[in-house]
């Protein structure tokens, strides 16, 4: 069983959660002023790293809150979970 640590509820089974793609993507403040290319980049282009990835998840069958997950895409290990609004953790080069 794969356990995810919800920042609000604690350790719960993975099947209670859903992943919603990459985290820390800020909507441009001035959408009417930027080019189509920049807007397209914001809308459609995502990182696809081999290694540490930052994602947004929801605890659907629990508290129904959104939170961020730092996950290794190679090992599937969840390195850290943290609340929305908290700073992006720094990736160590170990």
């Amino acid at each position, binding site marked *: 069983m794969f356990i995810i640590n919800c920042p*609000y509820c*604690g*350790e*719960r089974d993975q099947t*209670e959660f859903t992943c919603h793609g990459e985290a820390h993507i800020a909507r441009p403040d001035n959408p009417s002023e930027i080019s189509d290319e920049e807007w397209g980049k914001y809308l459609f282009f995502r990182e696809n790293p081999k290694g540490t990835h930052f994602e947004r998840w929801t605890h659907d*069958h*629990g*508290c*129904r*809150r959104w939170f961020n997950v730092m996950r290794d895409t190679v090992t599937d290990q969840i390195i850290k979970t943290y609340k929305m609004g908290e700073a992006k953790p720094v990736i160590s080069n170990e």
Partner: protein
Amino acid sequence: MSNQPQIFSPLTQKEKIASDNISLELIDFIGKINVRLKEDDVQARDAVEKYLTYSLPKSAGEVTGNNETRVLWLGPNEYLLLSEDEKKDNVINGLREILSDSFCAITDVSDYYLTMRLSGPKSIEVLTKACPLNFDQYLTKGNSCAQSYISKATVLIDRLSDDLVFDISVRWSFADYLWDWLADSSNEFILSEK
């Protein structure tokens, strides 16, 4: 033909289970009020606590209450307040009055959820068949609650006391399915008594 709305429960036709190992019964018509406050609004929280005369749950899975009402933790800024069905309108109006200046939401969800009570020494064994919760870690004592799912239905489980008594709240459209599932899963423990 009358246009008067009629109160009925989707589970009135179900036969309740009562055995030494496991019991399942319908707990009809409880007032359920969803209360959402801003997480950092201490003033609103204090006002609600003063109104209820006891403190709101502070951490995940906590339940507080007195003889009249009971408050379950649903999220860092969300609570479920249970009261008698007849008294819920008073509670809703009371809360709306004291929170009139706060950013909050008070929603009557009494008819949205249905509650069934599972009890008996085998109740945890029935639940663990299709609920991913670790029952050594969660719902270990009375006055605790947890949200999870049982089979395909999202549920809120409220452990009423240190005895094995669980009130399971489920969206009413799932109630028929969940009742049948629990009844079917309980069957082996009823048969083993005979």
